[in-house]
């Protein structure tokens, strides 16, 4: 069995999750605490990939990042090719999986009692210190949920990947695309194996997630 699609999927999912945690944390923190009028707008934008067909998202990304897209002069200058490349896949996945990472983080931040952070301030903790010493530990379970969901969701995406990544073995042919590809070639045996791996992996991850939540709840009670 060709293991390449498997490794590619893992790499894509972990890179995407990592990028989303880095970008999503400040965004979620801002969303959880701001009273800005722009909040509903930003929330809608982040949630949009949840309701849009992935092909629509992939299509626009293709137009945006493609050789005739508005960004092409810049991309040419930087000698970057984003469509049909792994980097392009990461960009697409980051947008596509954003709600699965940002929303749990936002919920976790919102659940922190305001008084806890105020108390930290009265004890001499500056804003960044408060975030690190109070907000992060209290939102730890939110980070676990966000990572697992972001990872699992990226693993399962198909439409966006196909639109901007195509089906290049070793570069953009991730597990979900490989399954589709094998079915097209009537290689049901390989498709079966890939699918089974995906089902088993996703199931295991979700069991681990719920188990960790349950044991935390038990510790508290």
């Amino acid at each position, binding site marked *: 069995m060709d293991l390449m699609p498997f490794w590619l999927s893992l790499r894509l999912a972990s890179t995407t999750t990592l990028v989303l945690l880095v970008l999503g944390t400040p965004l979620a923190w801002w969303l959880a605490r701001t009273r800005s009028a722009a909040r509903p707008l930003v929330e809608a934008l982040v949630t949009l990939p949840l309701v849009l067909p992935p092909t629509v998202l992939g299509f626009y990304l293709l137009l945006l990042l493609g050789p005739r897209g508005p960004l092409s002069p810049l991309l040419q200058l930087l000698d970057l090719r984003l469509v049909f490349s792994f980097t392009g896949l990461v960009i697409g996945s980051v947008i596509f999986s954003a709600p699965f990472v940002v929303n749990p983080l936002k919920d976790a931040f919102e659940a922190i009692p305001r008084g*806890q952070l105020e108390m930290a301030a*009265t004890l001499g903790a500056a804003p960044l210190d408060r975030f690190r010493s109070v907000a992060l530990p209290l939102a730890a379970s939110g980070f676990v949920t966000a990572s697992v969901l972001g990872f699992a969701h990226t693993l399962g995406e198909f439409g966006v990947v196909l639109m901007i990544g195509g089906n290049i073995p070793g570069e953009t042919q991730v597990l979900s695309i490989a399954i589709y590809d094998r079915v097209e070639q009537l290689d049901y045996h390989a498709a079966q194996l890939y699918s089974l791996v995906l089902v088993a992996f996703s199931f295991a991850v979700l069991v681990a997630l719920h188990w960790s939540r349950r044991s935390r709840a038990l510790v508290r009670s």
Partner: protein
Amino acid sequence: MNRLGVRLSLERGELTLDVAFELGERGVTTLSGPSGSGKTTLLRCIAGLERPRDGLITCGEETWFDPVGGIELPTHRRAIGYVTQEAHLFPHLSVRGNLEYGARRAGSRAGAADPERLAADLGITPLLAKRVEHLSGGERQRVAIGRALLGRPQLLLLDEPVSALDEAGTAEVLETLERVLSALSIPCLYVSHDLREASRLADRMIWLQGGRVAADGGAREVMSDPRLPFAQAEDAGSVIDGRVESVDSGLGLARVSFAGGELWIASGANTSPGRSVRVRMRARDVSLALRRPEAISVLNVLEGRVVDVADAQGSPSQALVRVDVGGCLLLSRVTRRSVAELGLAPGLRVWALAKSAAIVR
């Protein structure tokens, strides 16, 4: 060096806050008043958690808030200790971790804060390794007080620290507060709506009404002022600070001397000879006589002069009489009929008969 100067105004919904006062270098000042009078808001403004419209807040040499000078020191740079109704302990830290949180951030600020000794004073030494979710309400508040003090504050702000506790928890925390606050060398502003709580702890009392300071003075004067709600409350009373002279354990009584004479009170754990105590007499337990009564069961008979007579609000048949006993003010609740029959008026010499007196501190 820690003098706190507060002058601020603010409008928020129904509330218009407009206050000015100063706190001395030490001592407990209670802040009371009806709900909605702005007590908590005032405390939050001093802590920098809310922003007044205008004013000036200074602590010692430091200016914390001065819109004219463009100064608004953020909360984390004000040397305060803040304790609220909810302890807001950090659930991800142990009791020790909570205590160390403020201490580690206090920097080079001077102040007496030996963690081990403070923990012993607060009675939380056995709890140090525990997780905070396993603490009782009273224990949580004692840890919160310790955490605030270990941050080496120059000002301690307490916002109804016992009002969310049950009776046992309240007694436990008040007893601890009494011990800790009296040893403190910084000013303390204590929001409380409870009369007994205030009478136990206060050196000075501020009464806030409709966002303004309606009364401000020494605890003994404010408590016995019939124009203020303290004296009008059902179990109102006056407090006297004195010293235990001797104890008659056979009779179960202790003799307490104060500026106006001597008092007999029930002896107890707090009545070791030489100890300073605060005694509280409820107004309704104090009767008045024009001549020194003899052959009477009441132990405490004190000579004094009537200061003033005021109507008792809410009970048309009664009046509140203030009596000056050697410089201490005693409050007596009598019927208006007695006022008329005895001719009670300012300046009149009377004997106050206190049926009971209890140590509150």
